[in-house]
């Protein structure tokens, strides 16, 4: 029975899959999303169709068996951009089904350690991106920001920005995973949509002025006698700098226009 399983790549899909295998204590050989992967030639693939009713039932059971912080670990690990995270969650839950809530403290267990460490990475990146998002005011009447995080953190940062900037239309575009959050200030709702990048945003004059002010302010703020570029680089890795106003010259070159692709 420990064959290969395929689901649609959504969290609900994974929960449906888990609802199938956990009661039978099956540890799959692998869990895939893409049906065309080469390994699938050599093993039989069980395809799981997402079933909303089953998802709700299973989620209720999960929250009963585990503490809220363990459920959060699972959600954050799922959002990690790492292959094999589904199996990691599987192993964790198989153990959880045996030991119950005690699993929260079993930090050194080989089935538990990888999961909380991954969850911690995702949580850390979520926190950093609450600071690293830079909005640009566009002539289209909304504030646009492009980011390129390692993990799929959009759904984790959305509530923060929705609460903070509830009086402006804004878009945060994840260029790495080709999706974005769109916030509508009238309805006060956010939505995650697939997004492509092709156009530079059309910036307002005020935007360019504030960017210039910010760059000059940022440069002034450094105390040259205390210069420590190594420390700066550990705090602001080079890979995030193209998206930060204070580390790039002039506006617009990295921008893109929101364009739902489906």
């Amino acid at each position, binding site marked *: 029975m420990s064959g290969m399983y395929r689901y649609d790549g959504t969290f609900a899909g994974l929960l449906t899959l888990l609802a199938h295998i956990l009661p039978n204590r099956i540890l799959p050989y692998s869990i895939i999303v893409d049906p065309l992967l080469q390994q699938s030639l050599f093993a039989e693939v069980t395809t799981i169709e997402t079933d909303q009713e089953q998802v709700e039932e299973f989620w209720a059971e999960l929250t009963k068996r585990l503490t809220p912080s363990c459920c959060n670990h699972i959600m954050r690990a799922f959002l990690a951009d790492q292959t094999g995270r589904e199996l990691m969650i599987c192993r964790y839950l198989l153990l959880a089904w045996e030991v119950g809530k005690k699993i929260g403290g079993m930090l050194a267990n080989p089935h538990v350690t990888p999961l909380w460490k991954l969850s911690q990475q995702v949580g850390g990146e979520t926190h950093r991106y609450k600071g690293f998002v830079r909005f640009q005011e566009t002539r289209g009447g909304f504030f646009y920001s492009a980011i390129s995080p390692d993990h799929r953190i959009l759904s984790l940062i959305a509530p923060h920005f929705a609460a903070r900037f509830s009086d402006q239309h804004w878009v945060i575009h994840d260029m790495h995973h080709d999706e974005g959050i769109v916030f509508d200030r009238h309805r006060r709702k956010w939505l995650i949509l697939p997004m492509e990048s092709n156009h530079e945003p059309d910036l307002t004059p005020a935007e360019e002025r504030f960017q210039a002010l910010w760059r000059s302010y940022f440069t002034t703020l450094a*105390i040259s006698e*205390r210069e420590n*570029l190594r420390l700066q680089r550990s705090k602001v890795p080079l890979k995030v700098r193209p998206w930060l106003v204070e580390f790039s010259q002039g506006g617009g070159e990295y921008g893109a226009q929101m364009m739902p692709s489906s």
Partner: protein
Amino acid sequence: MAVATDIMDKLEILAEGAKYDASCASSGSFRRNCDGIGNAASCGICHSWTSDGRCVSLLKLLMTNICIYDCAYCVNRRSNDLRRVMLTPAEVAELTIGFYRRNYIEGLFLSTGVVRSPDYTMELLIAAVSSLRQEYRFNGYIHLKLVPGADSLLVQKAGLLADRVSINLELPTPESLALLAPDKSREAVVGPMRQVNNLIVINREERRASRSVPRFAPAGQSTQLIVGATNESDRQIVTLSEQLYRRLDLKRVYYSAYIPVVADTRLPVRSTSPLRREHRLYQADWLLRYYGFSAHELLDEKTPNLEVDIDPKTGWALRHLELFPVEINLADYEVLLRVPGIGVRSAQRIVRARRQGHLGIDDLAKLGVVLKRARYFLTARGRYPGGCAMESSLLRRKLVGGQSQQGGIQLELPLSQPQATDERISLIAGEL
């Protein structure tokens, strides 16, 4: 465009004047966005880091760099030949909102030189902040400086608008203050600190009775000390901090290494590694606030200064080897916290994990506990991983040797020794 350039100039000059204030925290307050813009996250958020590795969280700005005082350590002192400018309250508010909307900053840190009189200056600050809170309905974080000598009613008003208020002590002893800041009295600085503390206590009581009472400085108050401009020992400084935390319930004491570029005749020629000293003081400060240490444990008459090549906790442990090694499966949380190399998070994880079974050395590594220093001070299931005798000088050699590959922290300054001239230039803006 003339207006824009004007603002650009002012922003540059006033940021230049404010940047030496070490306070950067945006944590400790929680403010909801009620139908305006912004909120305050209780964890605090850093938005960027400048090339000196310090974080940018708040828009750190002076209202003006005009000052009637002549404090020797301050760039904005009256006798310094500087271009003097001033922002209007409306300009401060506009800049703050413009930056905040773009998510450059977490809020505003507004300080100032003293123009005309303390009361007049304090009123300017309050005008800027109330414009933000009332006209722009800004609910983000605001850190407001109190001007020494300002009327107590104004202090109260400031605390109702800001999340955190602060007044910088700057010099640890009244004697140093008299020497370097002859226009200020110790009482003018400590008086408002005491008043703020009383108001916070009263406000807490009132809010317990009714939640509708507006909050007074929900993120408390902080202060800053300049280190190395005068001859105080670390023991004097750490003891002072301890008193500030215990008696005045301060949230933070910041330490700012005084960096002499050209010596003032009033300033002593001091240590060659001011940043290392600053770093050790911050470590000692953390031990006071989060690790249950008291000042007299870290420093006494025999050792009035913190050791340069070893952190204060390790130094303490080496003086008290009779308490070590501790068994991680049995030791209380408070005891674990005192093991060098084990921090709050590691200690919490150990306590949580050992409930589910005894921990070995390998398990510690899995929990993310760094063993570089800790290995010499603990046992796991009775096994001592240090691999050498528990002997003070031997351990010290091993620990100091292991510190050469420290990452990220810069402890030395690439400075030549200051030359004594008549010119007075200093790098610390202790504008208040």
